[in-house]
C-alpha cells in the first residue's frame, strides 16, 4: 500500500482528501504545516508527498527546497497543490523542486493520474470499486 504524506493546513481539505485517497487504497500520513511536514518526511520516508504551498511556519516552496536538499528525502516525489491556476505558480513550484503540480479544487481522477505516473497506483480496497 503506497504511503502518501499530505501536508495541508486546511482541516477540511485534509479530511476530505485523506478519506478519498484511503478509499483508493493509499495509506495517508498527515502534517499541518511545512516544518512538521519536513520532519515527518524525514522520519517516515513516504512514497509521495502532496504539498499545499500556502502553509504556516514554512511554506510549501521552502519545505520542498529543504526536502530536495536532504539526501534521505530528495528522492521522494512531491506534487504541489495550490488554489492558484497561474502558469507562473506552476513554474515556481517546479523551480522549488516539485515533481508535478495540481490546482485546487482537486479533481481526483486527474490527481490520481499524476500520482500513479510518479509511483504507480494504490491498492483497490473492497469499498473502492465504485466509479469516480
Amino acid at each position, binding site marked *: 500500500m503506497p504511503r502518501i504524506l499530505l501536508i495541508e493546513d*486546511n482541516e*477540511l*481539505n485534509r479530511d*476530505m*482528501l485523506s*478519506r*478519498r485517497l484511503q*478509499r483508493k487504497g493509499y495509506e495517508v500520513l498527515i502534517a499541518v504545516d511545512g516544518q512538521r511536514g519536513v520532519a515527518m518526511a524525514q522520519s517516515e520516508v513516504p512514497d509521495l508527498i502532496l504539498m499545499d*504551498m*500556502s502553509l504556516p511556519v514554512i*511554506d510549501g516552496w521552502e519545505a520542498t527546497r529543504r526536502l530536495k536538499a536532504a539526501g534521505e528525502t530528495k528522492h521522494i516525489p512531491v506534487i504541489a497543490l*495550490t*488554489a*492558484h*491556476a*497561474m502558469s507562473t*505558480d506552476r513554474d*515556481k513550484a517546479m523551480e522549488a523542486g516539485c515533481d508535478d503540480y495540481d490546482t*485546487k*479544487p*482537486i479533481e*481526483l481522477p486527474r490527481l490520481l493520474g499524476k500520482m500513479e505516473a510518479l509511483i504507480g497506483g494504490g491498492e483497490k480496497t473492497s*469499498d473502492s470499486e*465504485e466509479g*469516480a
Partner: protein
Amino acid sequence: MKELPKAIEERVQHMLPADLLHDLRTPLGHILGYSELLIEQVQEAGHEEFVPYLEKIRTAGRQLLEMMKDNFQGVRPPGGES
C-alpha cells in the same frame, strides 16, 4: 463569458483578484470534494435515492467553478504570489 450580477461585480472590484479567487476556491473545493465522496458512499450503502440530489450539488459546484475560471482567469495583484 458568463456575467456576474452587478452587485457582486462591484464588490469584487474592491478585492484583490487573486485573493478573491483563492478564497472562493477553498470552500468550493469542499463542496465538490465532499459531494463526490458522499455520492460514492451512498451508492455503496444502497441509498440510490440520495444520489440525484448530491449530483445536483456537485453540478452546481462545477458550474460555479467554470464561472470563476471564465471571469477571473489570469488575474492577480501586482507583485502578488501565494
